């Protein structure tokens, strides 16, 4: 992995030899994950990409301590995944915003603080800051159902940041959004991640999304679920860890610049080829949903 020598500080996530087996109906077992090795440095943005059933969501859930690995070790910020969950070291967002309808937008953002007994004044202040961060300051008193899908997802992201986590786990957070909203949310997310200096483990189906957001794109393949390749992403310069903070508009421009650059298309192609190789290895049943493209695939190289 490229991240091993990145820093001396404790890795945001460190997975060694992680296996996850689910009992299958009829007595067998499904190998959801096998031999997963992955390390996220502090502030690093890593996307997991792969076809359905490749175990990318399971991997994220193992890091979140929502699933127990069958074998291997999982360290989050140098602690066990369980301890990290109990200490609220990570924030999490799912494909569905999952906002509680009986709470206002602000109260939803406060939820992680509320359930751990943070004083009301402090909660209020934090929620106001976070809503300003995601550009929803005017909607604090609204009900979630009064917001559009993209706005709801921004509330969910604000909520995931409530405890100032050093790690964000995101399971296809933009998967239910339309393309325009999605692109805007990607720029928003990069800006937010910049300001909070959090590391991100990001599950997605979208190759361009993975490339534009990530420092590294981890390509996975199914049956059994495993990592087949790691491709360098094209996260805009200056939004990387240690880079100076940008104006919100600058981040949007930077992201747009990346989307139109040749390097971006190269990386997209590289990920796409990796995905195709992975699916060839795993057998004919896997359907590659990627769009047709110009460059031919070289099937000679196996994934790393």
């Amino acid at each position, binding site marked *: 992995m490229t991240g091993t020598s990145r820093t001396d500080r404790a890795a945001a996530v460190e997975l060694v030899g992680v296996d996850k087996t689910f009992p299958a109906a009829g007595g067998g077992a499904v190998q959801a994950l096998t031999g997963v090795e992955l390390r996220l440095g502090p502030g690093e943005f890593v996307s997991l990409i792969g076809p359905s059933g490749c175990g990318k969501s399971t991997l994220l859930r193992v890091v*979140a*301590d*929502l699933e127990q690995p069958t074998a291997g070790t999982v360290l989050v910020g140098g602690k066990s995944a369980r301890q990290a*969950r*109990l*200490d*609220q070291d*990570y924030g*999490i967002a*799912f494909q*569905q*915003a*999952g*906002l*509680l*309808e*009986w709470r206002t937008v602000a109260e939803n953002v406060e*939820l*992680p603080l*509320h*359930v*751990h007994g943070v004083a009301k004044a402090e909660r209020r202040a934090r929620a106001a800051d976070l809503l300003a961060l995601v550009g929803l300051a005017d909607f604090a008193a609204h009900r*979630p*159902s*009064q917001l*559009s*899908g993209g706005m*709801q997802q921004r509330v969910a992201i604000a909520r995931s940041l409530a405890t100032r986590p050093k790690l964000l786990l995101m399971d296809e957070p933009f998967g239910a959004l339309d393309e325009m909203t999605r692109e805007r949310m990607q720029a928003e997310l990069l800006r937010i991640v910049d300001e909070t200096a959090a590391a991100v483990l990001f599950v997605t189906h979208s190759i361009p999304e993975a490339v534009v957001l990530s420092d590294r794109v981890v390509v996975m393949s199914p049956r059994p679920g495993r990592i087949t390749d790691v491709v360098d992403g094209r996260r805009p310069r200056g939004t990387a860890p240690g880079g100076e903070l940008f104006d919100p508009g600058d981040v949007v421009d930077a992201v747009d610049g990346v989307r139109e650059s040749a390097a971006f298309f190269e990386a997209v192609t590289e990920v796409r080829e990796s995905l195709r190789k992975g699916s060839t290895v795993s057998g004919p049943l896997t359907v590659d949903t990627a769009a047709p493209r110009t460059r031919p695939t070289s099937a000679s190289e196996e994934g790393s």
Partner: protein
Amino acid sequence: MRTTGQGAPRGLRRSRWRGPATTLAAFALLVVAWELVKVLVPDDGVTIGGVRVLPRTSDAAMPHVWTVVGRLFDPEVAGAAEPRSIGAAVAAGALFTLRLSLGGLILGGVLGVLLAVVMQRSGLVERMVLPYVIASQTVPLIAIAPLVAGWGGKIAVFGQPWEPWASVMVIAAYLAFFPIAVGMLRGLNSPARADVELFRALACGWWTTLVRLRLPASVPYLIPALRLAAAAAVIGAIVAEISTGTRGGIGRLIIEYAQSATGDPSRMYTAILGAAVLGLVAAGAVGLLDLALVRYRSASR
């Protein structure tokens, strides 16, 4: 899933008076229909081939609405030293029974919610208890009422002797807990998997998840269950009064007035009217609770 924006404020305002107005209109229609039947159907009813297909509509069988209303103002016992009107007697009886019904509803509500929480907590308990919860409702009430009264007579609670009204309340609770337990169990299990996982990710224990997620999410299930339970508690209380012979309530009044039905049919109808109003008031109490919990009544789930 939660993106369906409901135009709640406008709809709410319009429907606030609509419900009661519709109820009143339906009552007026009922009165008109009653009187129409009296006008159109002959006194002896309609008989085809020896089978009566429409009821007798003589004043003895179907008194005029205004006769029943007028009867409310007549003294209950003719020539009594302190004359009390029938209306006052019915109101006093209804109030007595209402108190027992609401007491039973609260008792049954607490029991039902606790049962649901325990069943939600443990699948084993659910499998063990739920069949008996359902079976409890198939036992005829009139079989249970004397039993409860009999047991009650042998025990004292906190040094207080068991009063007959306590039996009535327990029986009302016995009917009321069932819809609440079943509805609440559904409600507690209603949060989406993702919501439950969010709370797990937030390192929330069982109690916090119950208080902050499962209980608020179960309100839309609890309110209809409470409506059923309120009606059941009223029926339970009335039947319990009758079968335990408890005095002072509307149940006893119905029996007493029914005994004079041949000579004084409209008197019986006053008691029935009282029981109906009692049911409406009990349902209205639930409606008030519904208004108080409107925040949790999410339309988009």
